[in-house]
């Protein structure tokens, strides 16, 4: 009650502090949701298809930097446990106005094609030929292209033969090319970036065994189930670690802002705090007051910040450049937001509470 009244007494200051908490929370929520969203999308890239394992280069930092020799495919197909192998070339290039444009080089029988649904024109392999491209719906929108238009890509003029949709924004905002075209565009002659492996026997044991055997026979290869593919690349960990660093930073910076408010609040109530102690309030009760005030700020600021963070992600995703951005909101994201909000409250009230406890009633009574 007292905490509530104190906050109302200094409305502007309270508003600023709540805003500070909300901004801190929103940044962390947005960063974390985007980082997780990216990881989820990468895990989704090949998950809904028939692929059981994805092979990539062991030490690759990024899926597009994972170079494997195309000759590997033949060797793999010869193995008993493997039913089929399809190559993938993942690449990124610039297509004005987009700074990053992702393309997927694929084969006609690739399980990857199960990730897309042609909605206009025809499929990439419906008619034989080169220099054909299918655009995701977002890509078509961002680039202003329709079926029949041309698209300059890496010095070549490709013809848009079809539009597709995909549930994964990363695919939906990209393009589909034949493997050969993609290799040329990416400068990867005789190379691929990953291979999608279908096993004859796909039970859990067989999967683990195949994973181990492949990695043993090809030390440069990392084999991962599609739904864990992102784990093969450190950069996704890095993105989430960055979010964690920001979480800590936000708690510190926001904590200082809360602390500033609480300190002012404690100082201007020196006499009041002294009087409360004089009429029997214990130090712990005084500490609780300060904590309650900070936690009240956190309680209001945190949900606002979470809402703001979701809004930021949506806003970013609405820009052409970032149409592949999709926030992934799991409990961890919200817990992170809550931790930041309340972390700020707690960090910000420790020192003020200590100062409040240091006020002795005698001194406070002499203080005018």
């Amino acid at each position, binding site marked *: 009650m007292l905490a509530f009244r104190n906050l109302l007494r200094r409305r502007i200051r309270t508003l600023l502090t709540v805003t500070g908490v909300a901004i801190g929370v929103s940044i962390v929520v947005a960063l974390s949701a985007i980082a997780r969203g990216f990881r989820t999308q990468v895990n989704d890239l090949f998950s809904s298809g028939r692929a059981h394992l994805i092979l990539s280069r062991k030490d690759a930092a990024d899926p597009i930097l994972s170079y494997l020799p195309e000759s590997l495919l033949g060797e793999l197909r010869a193995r008993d446990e493997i039913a089929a192998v399809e190559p993938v070339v993942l690449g990124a290039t610039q297509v004005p106005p987009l700074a990053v444009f992702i393309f997927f080089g694929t084969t006609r029988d690739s399980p990857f094609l199960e990730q897309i649904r042609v909605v206009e024109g025809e499929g990439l392999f419906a008619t034989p030929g080169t220099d054909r491209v299918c655009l995701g719906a977002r890509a078509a929108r961002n680039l202003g292209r329709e079926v029949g238009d041309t698209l300059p890509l890496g010095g070549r003029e490709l013809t848009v033969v079809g539009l597709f949709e995909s549930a994964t924004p990363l695919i939906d905002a990209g393009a589909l090319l034949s493997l050969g075209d993609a290799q040329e565009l990416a400068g990867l002659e005789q190379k691929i970036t990953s291979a999608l492996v279908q096993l004859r026997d796909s039970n859990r044991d067989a999967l683990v065994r195949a994973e181990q055997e492949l990695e043993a026979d090809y030390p440069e290869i990392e084999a991962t189930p599609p739904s864990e593919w992102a784990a093969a690349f450190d950069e996704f960990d890095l993105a989430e670690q960055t979010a964690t660093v920001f979480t800590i930073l936000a708690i510190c910076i926001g904590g200082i802002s809360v602390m500033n408010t609480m300190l002012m609040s404690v100082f201007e109530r020196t006499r*009041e705090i002294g*009087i409360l*102690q004089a009429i*029997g*309030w*214990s130090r712990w009760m005084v500490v609780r007051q300060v904590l309650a005030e900070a936690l009240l700020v956190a309680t209001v600021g945190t949900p606002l910040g979470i809402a703001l963070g979701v809004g930021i992600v949506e806003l970013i995703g609405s820009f052409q450049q970032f149409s592949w951005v999709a926030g992934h909101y799991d409990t961890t994201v919200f817990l992170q937001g809550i931790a930041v909000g309340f972390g700020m409250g707690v960090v910000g009230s420790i020192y003020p509470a200590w100062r409040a406890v240091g006020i002795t009633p005698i001194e406070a009574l002499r203080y005018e």
Partner: protein
Amino acid sequence: MSDDVVLRIEGLRKTYETGRVRALDGIDLVLRRGEFVSIVGPSGSGKSTLLHVLGALDRPDEGSVWLGGQDLVTAERLDRVRARSIGFVFQLHNLVPTLTAVENVELPLYALDVSRAERRRRAEELLVAVGLSERLHHRPSQMSGGQRQRVAIARALVNQPELVLADEPTGDLDQETGRHVLELLERLREERGLTLVLVTHDMAVAERADRTIRLIDGRIASS
């Protein structure tokens, strides 16, 4: 110690600034239940310091203080003593400005194990007793100085203390208002059998007490 002794002080000394200021310099005092004692003396003579020691706000450097059966020199939790046994009325500005009259009066009860309903009941009862039944939900800023001191008196009594201490409670009020506040305090003392110690510089007021203690330079000059 006989039953009706509320407070006993012996050889009380208190110095400030590492001994240079002798605020209290050997005080002996016994207060009996229901007694009304006034303390007078020039400014700086140690009146407030004495009241603070009586009220478990401060510990002496030397001497003993017994309140009820309790030794206040060694008591670990003076805040508990204050919460249970002491009622304070200070000069002006001792209410919490953001709280209403009734909320201010409830404050001491948060330190005790009193239910919410009981808190409200006692606070309202006392505000009625001090004649503020019409002002229960006013904030201090919406009340006159005299009304605020009545709230402070109600707050001092709400924990049913053994000892009520008032440090120049009318110091910031005009004479007329001050007199009304003191009359109220006296009336409550009679009705409720309070043990009351009142610091004042108003001799007329002081003389209405059962006993007047005159302090000079931290010593009792006469009583």
